[in-house]
């Protein structure tokens, strides 16, 4: 994996050949600004539904193991 990543980065390094002096970055191609919708309450997923796919739902919440292994 390390060798593959190095090889990909070697190819990517060719981007240095492109003159980007004074060029603005593109993060998005459709010129959109401040797309708004009316600020009105609307239904969202029921808690039960939102929890239904969790590996370990418990008491209305997503349960995770302790940050520290039990000793």
């Amino acid at each position: 994996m390390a060798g593959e990543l190095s090889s990909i980065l070697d190819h990517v390094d060719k981007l240095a050949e492109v003159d980007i002096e004074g060029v603005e970055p593109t993060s998005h191609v459709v010129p959109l600004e401040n797309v708004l919708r009316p600020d009105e309450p609307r239904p969202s997923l029921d808690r039960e539904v939102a929890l239904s796919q969790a590996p370990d739902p418990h008491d209305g919440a997503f349960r995770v193991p302790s940050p520290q292994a039990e000793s």
Partner: protein
Amino acid sequence: MADLMAATGAQTAALISSGEASADEVLDFWLERASGDGLNGYLWTADRESARAGVDGSGPLAGVPVAIKDIFCTEGVPTTAASRILEGYLPPYTATAVARLNAGGMPMLGKTNMDEFAMGSSNENSAYGASLNPWDRGRVPGGSSGGSAAVVAGGLAPWALGTDTGGSIRQPAGFCGIVGLKPTYGAISRFGMIAFASSLDQCGPLTRDVTDAALLLATLQGRDQMDSTSVGIEGGISAPGAERLDGLTFGVPRGLIGQGIEAGVLARFEETLIKIAELGGTIVDIELPHAGHAISAYYVLAPAEASTNLSRYDGVRYGVRASDEDLLSMYEVTREEGFGPEVKRRIMLGTYALSSGYYDAYYGRAQRVRTRIVEDFRNAFGQVDFVVTPTSPTVAFELGEKTADPWTMYQSDLFTVPMSLAGVPAISIPAGLAQPDGGGPDLPVGFQIAAPAFAEQKLLEASFALESAIGFDGSAGLEGGLR
């Protein structure tokens, strides 16, 4: 009964509305075909009831079932993006694109195989085994929408939905001898489409012909409140009918096409240019000076976005959890076991490109090269109506042929990635058959046409005229789908 196998999607819809075939007959026919899948094209197939579960309306295409790439969330129906990490996941809602088809009365035939999280060009990155090319089962169908392309080309679905980030609709459509359209970024809602690279991902149709692509696009496109980047196509889309290309100019980026292209692919491409001229179109050489850097820019930008998008798979809210030892090992083991090698490669690449100290050198630079490529297309479309290339440098390659070296695999998308970075619409239509370099069976060759943003109707009209002149026969593929 009418010959449903010979009918396109549009023709099937006409058979239903004229009463020559009932919607039940049509659905049963295609469910039977899908259940005989010999291409590993489907990860899940519907029955009569589940196929219609979401259908809640009617439209001109009512009753014609669609195969859906497994990247679209479908309420209560397994959705994995071909990843182990989403094994058993049943989404609580349906993607807007699928909901729009359902609202038009179209049932869902099944969920199609793909490269894991749409990362790949051969379907070999699926966690559930590669889908196969119906023209030659020893070869790949392309990717990442390989299952969608295979089931349409192999006569296991009348048409299908796919997604395209750097070529994932066009390249498999080209490899399988069908039509694949990547619309303008923003034409179709991405809501419920599992995210890979959000500034590039776009949904689109894979179909037997250009008319079918137009009709599906007409149903799919439009603004959606759930995706603030969706804007739709002004004026909508109608079935194309152009016969000539008079007055239209087609630009050929010769500087790009020189690289590593197979002789047979180049021959079909040059013949297609002659057909364009015969229809009254003008061919001119153009420059896309920075398009040769598109693959390098793409393999910074797409992995960077992917590394962010895929951080959500952590074993907490949905999907698979692999360890309950402690919190950190739960994250680590879940992601270690849940993701395949290509996904891990791209997460690491993207994380590196975004990391402090390397951000400007990689991500910032790639974003600026992207600007250069956007400008290349803007300049080109100041001179010409369309940009044309072969869809891929090669015909479908053999299973395993390019898996050893990721960069070799990435070159499959040499001609499709530039359009993705520029966000412009592009279509692949079959241009005939060719042998691979070094000999082998006759395999489909794709011809790619790109147009300015939101000029889909014009793109479809030109593609329709050219498709009629080419007269491609895909029947050999249709024979290759069943077990």
